[in-house]
């Protein structure tokens, strides 16, 4: 196994990403199963960085000629899904905020109208 500067950088990033996972676990963003899943993902990533030839074996099994192609295809699909989820979430947040602002405006107007009616009656 040859350790190149590129592999060191990639492994460094993977280690950094895994420490963020640990922090999120400590903050209880996710539980034990989440920690195990993310640790497995980063461990597999580190394994393929150290032994890139093994990713070709997996790729051929999936029907893709090179490991790199399989990784890129998977990454693109995942990113498209994440973008969709982000857009859906942002769209939903905006709807909720608009609804809140609307109800606040209507409620404030109702209170002001009732207050005006009361003061007119007092006269």
């Amino acid at each position, binding site marked *: 196994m040859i350790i190149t500067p590129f592999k060191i950088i990639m492994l460094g990033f993977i280690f950094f990403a895994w420490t963020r996972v640990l922090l999120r676990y400590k903050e209880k963003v996710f539980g034990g199963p989440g920690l195990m899943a993310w640790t497995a993902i980063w461990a597999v990533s580190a394994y393929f960085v150290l032994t890139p030839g093994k990713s070709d074996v997996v790729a051929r099994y999936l029907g893709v000629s090179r490991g790199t192609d399989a990784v890129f295809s998977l990454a693109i699909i995942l990113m498209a899904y994440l973008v969709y989820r982000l857009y859906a979430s942002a769209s939903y947040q905006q709807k909720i905020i608009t609804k809140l*602002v609307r109800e606040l405006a*209507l409620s404030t107007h109702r209170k002001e109208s009732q207050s005006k009616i009361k003061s007119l009656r007092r006269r």
Partner: protein
Amino acid sequence: MRLAIIIPAYNEETVIAEVISKLPTKITGVREVEIVIVNDGSTDKTGEIIDGLNTSITALHLLINSGLGGAISTGLAYVKRSGHDIAVTYDADGQHRPEDLIKLVKALVVKKGDFIVGSRLINSKGMPWYRIFGNHGLNWITLLLFGVKTTDSQSGLRGFSRKAIEKMNIEVERMEVSSIFFSEVAKHKLKYKEVPIKAIYTEYSLGKGQKNANAFPLIVKLLWNKFSR
């Protein structure tokens, strides 16, 4: 019949008082006219001007800018709860003529349709060519996505019958609301009609409203709305 004139206003301190002063207070066939201004989080003196007007109007102030869709849906929610028989949306930038509003109201009173749009393109004389081009483009998209044929999907002068007020559920925030009305027309099988109107184009009013550069994000929002509900 009780009529509500809904005016969404965002940063219109220059013209809002004049626009309101020209609105009709009596229309044949209408017992009561209520002017409902929705101040869409204006950062200029629009809110203060509205509150300081002598005329008896209903002012709804949105704390933050919610967009045309947010402002109109607030106005329609108020109208729905207040039990008005008909409602009209009217631009705050002085683009519309009071006589066209009266024309639209008369069409509502005689029940010509549930959703009636004042179309600037039935007679487009005086309309800038880029506005005509942009409008035709959006009309095609409205037809493709929602199956409703219209000559002016982006017109701000719109009339609603009580049935339309009850049935329509507007959940979009920005300029895409103009096309979304047609989605609601198709969904609830509302009767759609048009009346010809003439817009007033000044340097001020041309600076407002839908821009052709907004076309792409608007189409994305319409597609999202169509396929995510």
